[in-house]
């Protein structure tokens, strides 16, 4: 053991070290080398396979263009700088890491965006290119992986009528942007509403649990009042006074989540009315549903506007229009709140995803998960990491 360092040569023992010292330094250095080697090999594998696939996709596309039919003519021979298509087979020319510079998505065949659009390591994407929709994740404090952030949830119960009206004014026109939505950038989202499965009313998501508690479950005001009454009455029943005037003590016993500010006056109102308040206290029921359902649509629109020209271009592409439908339909289910039943009966195209190209993998693992589902997973997952920058 004469060497004072390992393969990496980063951790070296001083010259006057004992042999044991030198050995320890060499071992640590080798271990460090191995860690870097393994990381590098993993990135190399992902990158090289993705580039090889890109070369293959390109040459296949040319071959299919040349054969002028949906089926590629096997007699066609096409050669690019990176690959050759011959006799129905794609073979590589040279090292794909050198010959191929960008990465095409193996599913949609569009180029992958290789850098996040915002936050750490961000770069401006080329506005003339339609990229695959799988983007590198954004790392920016205060924003999520899609660069989204949320408007601070309202003051809850204490929300003033003025605020509510302002919000409705912003949302109800739906298609045309209003001053308020201009102020709010498209990546700032507000909390959505959802439909209660029992009463079909539209409830702001943050209050959904409480609403369901009173609507479906029996933890609502009346239930707890009844329980409190039973307790306070003990065995003696028929105290009519309690039925009419709820004792203040039982009111306080209503389960109140932390977010709700205690406001005794409102609590006197019936729970039902509390929920109406969410939409608009003055309108009749049917009209109330619509405005609250719309905010989602606005969000949707805004998001579409985000990447700018991209979406329109994609729309023009006939290949992808089907894809857009998929994404739109499950959303509609949530959007068209009053017609929920009818929309849900239409088999969502998204459901068909189940039979998609992934099907053999997925199906294979499900009846017999003991098969090599893990491997399959590895393959699909590793391809997913391709475009994300190393962290």
């Amino acid at each position, binding site marked *: 053991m004469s060497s004072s360092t*390992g393969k990496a040569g980063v951790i070296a023992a001083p010259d006057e070290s004992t042999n044991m010292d030198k050995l320890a330094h060499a071992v640590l250095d080798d271990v460090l080398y191995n860690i870097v*080697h393994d990381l590098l*090999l993993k990135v190399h*594998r992902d990158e*090289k396979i993705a580039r*090889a*696939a890109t070369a293959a*996709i390109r040459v296949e596309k040319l071959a299919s263009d040349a054969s002028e039919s949906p089926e590629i003519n096997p007699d066609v021979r096409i050669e690019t700088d990176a690959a050759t298509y011959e006799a129905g087979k*794609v073979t590589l020319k040279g*090292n794909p890491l050198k010959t191929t510079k960008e990465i095409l998505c193996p599913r949609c065949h569009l180029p992958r965006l290789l850098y996040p659009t915002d936050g750490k390591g961000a770069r401006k994407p080329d506005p003339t290119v339609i990229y695959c*929709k*799988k983007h590198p994740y954004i790392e920016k404090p205060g924003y*999520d*992986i*899609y660069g989204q952030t*949320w408007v601070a949830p309202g003051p809850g119960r204490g929300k003033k009528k003025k605020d509510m009206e302002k919000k409705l004014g912003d949302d109800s026109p739906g298609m045309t942007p209003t001053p308020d939505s201009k102020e709010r950038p498209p990546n700032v*989202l507000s*909390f*959505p509403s959802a439909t*209660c499965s029992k009463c079909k009313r539209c409830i702001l*998501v943050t*209050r*959904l*649990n409480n609403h*369901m508690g009173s609507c*479906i479950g029996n*933890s609502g005001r009346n239930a707890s009042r009844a329980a409190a009454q039973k307790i306070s009455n003990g065995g003696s029943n028929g105290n009519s006074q309690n039925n009419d005037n709820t004792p203040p003590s039982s009111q306080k016993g209503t*389960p109140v*989540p*932390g977010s709700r500010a205690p406001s005794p006056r409102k609590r006197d109102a019936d729970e039902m009315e509390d929920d109406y308040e969410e939409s608009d206290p003055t309108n009749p029921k049917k009209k109330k549903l619509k405005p609250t359902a719309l905010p989602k649509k606005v969000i949707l629109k805004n*998001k579409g506007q985000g990447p700018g020209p991209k979406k329109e271009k994609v729309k023009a592409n006939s290949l992808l229009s*089907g*894809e857009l*439908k*998929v*994404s739109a339909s499950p959303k509609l289910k949530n959007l068209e709140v009053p017609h929920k039943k009818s929309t849900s009966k239409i088999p*969502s*195209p*998204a459901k*068909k*995803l*189940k*039979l998609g*190209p992934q099907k053999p*993998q*997925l*199906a*294979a*693992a*499900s009846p017999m998960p003991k*098969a*090599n*589902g*893990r*491997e399959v*997973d*590895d393959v699909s997952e*590793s391809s*997913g990491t391709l475009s994300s920058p190393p*962290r």
Partner: protein
Amino acid sequence: MSARPTTPASPKNVKIKDPEAGTPVYGCEHVQRMFCQAQDVINTSIQHYKMILRSIFDNNTVVPQTSKAADGQPLTSLTSNYLCLQCPVTLTEEERTKHGKQKSHRFYVDSRSGSLYCQMCDDFVWDPTLEDLRVRKIGTGTFSSRKRKHEEMFSDPVKEDPRYISSNTTTASCRANGLRGIYNAGATCYQNVVLQSFLHNPMMRNFYLSDGHKRENCRQEGEYCLSCAMDDTFQEFYAAESTNGYTAANILSGFWISEKKAFENLVTTKEQDAHEFFQFLAEELHERNGDGKKPEIGSEHSCNCIIHQTFYGKLQSTTTCQHCGGVTNQVQSFLDLSLPLENLAQKKGKKSGAKAPALTLQECLEEEYIKSDKCEYRCHSCNSTQQARRQTSIKRLPNVLSIQLKRFEYKQGRHDKAAKIETQVQFPLQLNMLPYTNRARGQDTKDNYELARSCTYDLLSVIVHVGEIDTGHYVSYCRVGDQWFAFNDHRVELANKSDVLGAKAYLLFYIIRSLA
């Protein structure tokens, strides 16, 4: 694998992977040249590659790490050696170049990863045929794919035809990747964290995305079904393009509608225990998909439903009478392993003198599943109550191992008050469960790589509770591929491994590495 007879002279011809759209047939031009020769050249090359992979993954790692130095002395290295594909020799990186020049041998296998190195490209090459073998070897320990045979027998060849698939399906957008937050519907973060861990569990995902639970065939006609709600949720996560948070209204209402008596106290608008919700969800989904029997606590329950296949394992307790030496075994199913922290933390604290010693997950597991404890026991042969030693170990490991660290416990004493234990428990990204199984007992398992591999788990998700016992917040971390994500209700952020490992975990989910 050493037990399997190797058949080098097998008349069976090895096949190169069929050409697939979107991938080249060979890893590089040089591999192509090798594979375009006579069939026997292909056969020997692939046989050699398999042999090398076996020697790397099935044996002591010292063997492939040892090469012969020029003076004939064995030289063991920590860094990679290269095993020649064309002749049985192990070389260091420097020797490799010399060997290539002398013998014109161009392909080498990395001794630590099994990857193929091409000297003409001067680069690692990921050949579809060979890489498939390597991934399979690492994943399952075997090269064969019994699965395929099963598939061929039972699948409809028409339906597997890619043309049939493409004409009858729409592909989900590339943006739909299953990463969405879930809005907090008012103190429902305890549900959100458990749902996220289900949504990023590959077994659950594959089950639901492959139509494992069909709404049309659902037995719960007219009635509300939580499994249908899960199905909808999976669709929303993996097929919809939305990146906004998800509103789990259908699951929440299913939760309110459910009439499970055991979880009655869960159904309130207050904050709840995520572990209880996990149990609730698992039992509910079992009832919707399984044999219809209620899972009994403390007994052996075998069922083929997705929940049992994913989460359930079996424990075996062995009680040995101290008087007559009689042994009784009892087997019971488990959904999760609950590990007490308090006693162990106190014990360790006394030993080391530290006030709040950090525990490791392995220490907690050892305490429960290796060490034995004393108990009173009614012995059949003695026909009286005797002192006995009881020892519990894992008889069958589940595919997804869920571990609860008991952070919320009733402190016995003056005021029977529940308290939160804030002890730090270190947990690994990779967990070897072999020592805690009954197979590890009385057997030398040190060199059994096959067995060790079948007991290796990878961390999948971590659920963390922040705050006090009465009020707090749940957040979770889930792994998708190699990337970790932090889920905080509707917010999804990237997470580092160190964020994950530094968390004060409450629930841990580990997934088995190989589904062999």
